[in-house]
């Protein structure tokens, strides 16, 4: 017990602000829902906040299938959140998780459909590898551009998101389109689909192997960041690129490595989403993973464990959004409002600390200072 209390005392300064931000965001979001209902046909309903949270919570945790839905929604967020968080640790702001996710998804869908009659281990292994490699390649580009030319990764990754979406449309409409469907989509996955827990119970049918992969990625990334040499170098570059250079590290190469690894994780997220949940790719595949993963990484303070919990929270919100819309007649986009307000409170953590009378945390959003310092400056000289 005292050990637990010690752990809490250690974690409290780090965890308090994110928790406070979440609580405040829930309050603000319910006020927004309440006030905005004035101007709709349904009219003002004072019990709306209550209905919203009953809907959200019930949709996320009320029953086994709902909990499975939360986990399924959280899976890509864990992986893509780790991708963004890993970038933060090197002082890089990878807004391109969206594009890397899409490329990973389309590569996995294409390879999976091509190998749908191969033995499952081979088909799955090839499809997952293709997805991660495609994501890594899409992450390598902004990393190399940043290291070699100084082009800021925030702008280049956003541009690559749009280019990636066009590329996906092109691939699905031309090379990968499967015959025999009423709309453009990739072929059936067959043996390349990730195995799921449906053999245990019908409710668990959506619980796929990707969830396990995501759970394994958390300690893997933690080990890479905090126990390996390259992780140490990545964190040093993030904290102080000049010091890293003087210590004999090569910031340029580390930036390329970090963006590639980040893209790899996001690509893995895309691959597991396709192979485990969607099972095929369409030309205009829409997903909120891109921005959600930034929110997850910021809320989780770029720490793998924090990211895991943040991803579960946002997975729950996404899973609860649909049921909430049905029960409370509030648009499911309210979840986006909650997410936005959480982020605003995280940026303005001053407010959160004043309200909850918290002291300044040693580690916080300031620990993820992005490479603003290197704006417009070449890193490799």
């Amino acid at each position, binding site marked *: 017990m005292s050990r637990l209390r010690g752990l809490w005392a250690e974690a409290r300064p780090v965890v308090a602000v994110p928790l406070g931000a979440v609580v405040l965001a829930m309050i603000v979001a319910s006020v*927004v829902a309440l006030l905005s209902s004035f101007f709709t046909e349904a009219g003002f309903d004072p019990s709306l906040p209550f209905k919203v949270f009953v809907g959200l919570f019930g949709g996320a945790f009320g029953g086994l299938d709902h909990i499975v839905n939360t986990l399924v929604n959280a899976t890509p967020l864990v992986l893509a959140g780790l991708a963004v968080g890993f970038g933060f640790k090197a002082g890089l702001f990878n*807004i391109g998780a969206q594009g890397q996710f899409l490329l990973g998804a389309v590569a996995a869908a294409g390879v999976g459909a091509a190998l749908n009659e191969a033995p499952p281990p081979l088909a799955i292994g090839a499809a997952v590898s293709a997805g991660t490699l495609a994501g890594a390649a899409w992450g390598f580009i902004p990393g190399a551009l940043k290291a070699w030319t100084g082009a800021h990764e925030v702008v280049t990754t956003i541009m690559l998101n749009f280019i990636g979406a066009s590329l996906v449309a092109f691939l699905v409409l031309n090379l990968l389109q499967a015959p025999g469907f009423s709309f453009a989509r990739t072929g059936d996955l067959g043996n390349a689909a990730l195995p799921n827990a449906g053999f245990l119970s019908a409710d668990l049918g959506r619980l796929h192997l990707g969830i396990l992969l995501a759970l394994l990625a958390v300690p893997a990334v933690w080990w890479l960041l905090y126990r390996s040499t390259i992780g140490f170098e990545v964190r040093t570059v993030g904290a102080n690129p000049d010091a890293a250079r003087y210590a004999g590290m090569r910031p340029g190469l580390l930036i390329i490595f970090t963006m590639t690894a980040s893209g790899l994780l996001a690509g893995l997220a895309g691959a597991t989403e396709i192979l485990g949940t969607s099972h095929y790719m369409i030309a205009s595949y829409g997903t909120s993973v891109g921005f959600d993963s930034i929110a997850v990484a910021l809320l989780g303070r770029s720490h793998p464990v924090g990211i895991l919990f943040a991803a579960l929270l946002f997975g729950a919100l996404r899973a609860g959004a649909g049921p909430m819309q049905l029960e409370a007649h509030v648009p499911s986009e309210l979840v986006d409002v909650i997410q936005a307000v959480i982020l605003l409170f995280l940026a303005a953590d001053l407010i959160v600390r004043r309200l909850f009378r918290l002291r300044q945390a040693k580690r916080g959003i300031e620990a993820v200072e992005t490479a603003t310092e290197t704006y417009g*400056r070449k890193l490799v000289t």
Partner: protein
Amino acid sequence: MDPTSIPVLGVLIQLVGYLVEVLPDIAPIAIGLAAPIALGAMCGVIGERSGVVNIGIEGMMLMAAFVGFLVAGFVAQTFPATPWPIFGATPALLIGIVAAVLAAMAVALLHAWLSVSVRADQIISGTIINIAALGLTGYFNRLWIAPNPRLGAGTFQSFIPPAELTELPLVGWLLKAFLNQGPIAMSVIVIVIVLQVLLFRSRWGLRTRAVGEHPAAADTVGIDVLLLRYRNVVLAGAFAGLAGAYLTLEATGAFQNGMTTGRGFIALAAVIFGRWTPIGAFGAALLFSASDALAVAIALRPPTGHLGDLLTAIPSEFYASLPYLLTIIVLAGVVGRSIAPAAVGRPYAKESQA
């Protein structure tokens, strides 16, 4: 078609000929498409010249586009009016512009507060603004606009310049390109020139540049660094607001989720490519929009011969991503050689506070 059978030089000459031929036709389209990028770039130039990076231009535009559309729509519904002969303006559209500008300035105030007072990381602050704008507009779009499909105030009409001007030899097409526009797109060139003069010839401009290059020195000569940064970031927001108003009140007359489609980020690239000057950024914006307009021209009036075969063989998705590709190429090629304001991205605190 055998690729080796295409004479490369011939096709290049054909391409130049085609470009010259379609230039008068695509110039008005290009200048219209450049308007939101150029206005967003003005927002970026003022902010970065005073030392504040603004990644949130995209979000400010989106918020302005939404608020402008919503307010104009409600005003048009409550007070229907016949459009005026000039620009087809109505009170609703004009109030919409004001609302859009105010909305963007409010978001800019938030960015100023986060980056100047709270001294948060400016890139994170901007990104959060983008995510928040997307989330809020998506929510209210579903709540208020989606159930009212007839909501809307229409759009401004393009000015039709007199034929004596547009038929002048040599410069006629250029005059037409700049004058055959709605009010916002037409005012862009004026705004750009005024800002260029103000930034490099006025006291405000000198102070702004001083605060962006060396805030501590500016402070010692009595300039209130924080106040000037606040004022400039909020003022710059007005231009992002105009850009948003252009999208919903001049270009399309409808609001769609995420309709800014990266223009705020392209504007940032235009700022860098234009070496942090208004005129340069405007030129860069024209380059990006011209690539868009060219895709329109190729789709509507494809060239003949080998060039036509080649250009129509390129998938449409490539043309759709052309401005984004160009942005990356420009950033990669230019960044190392153009020098940003020295203090950009760094919060300023007096030594006693730091």
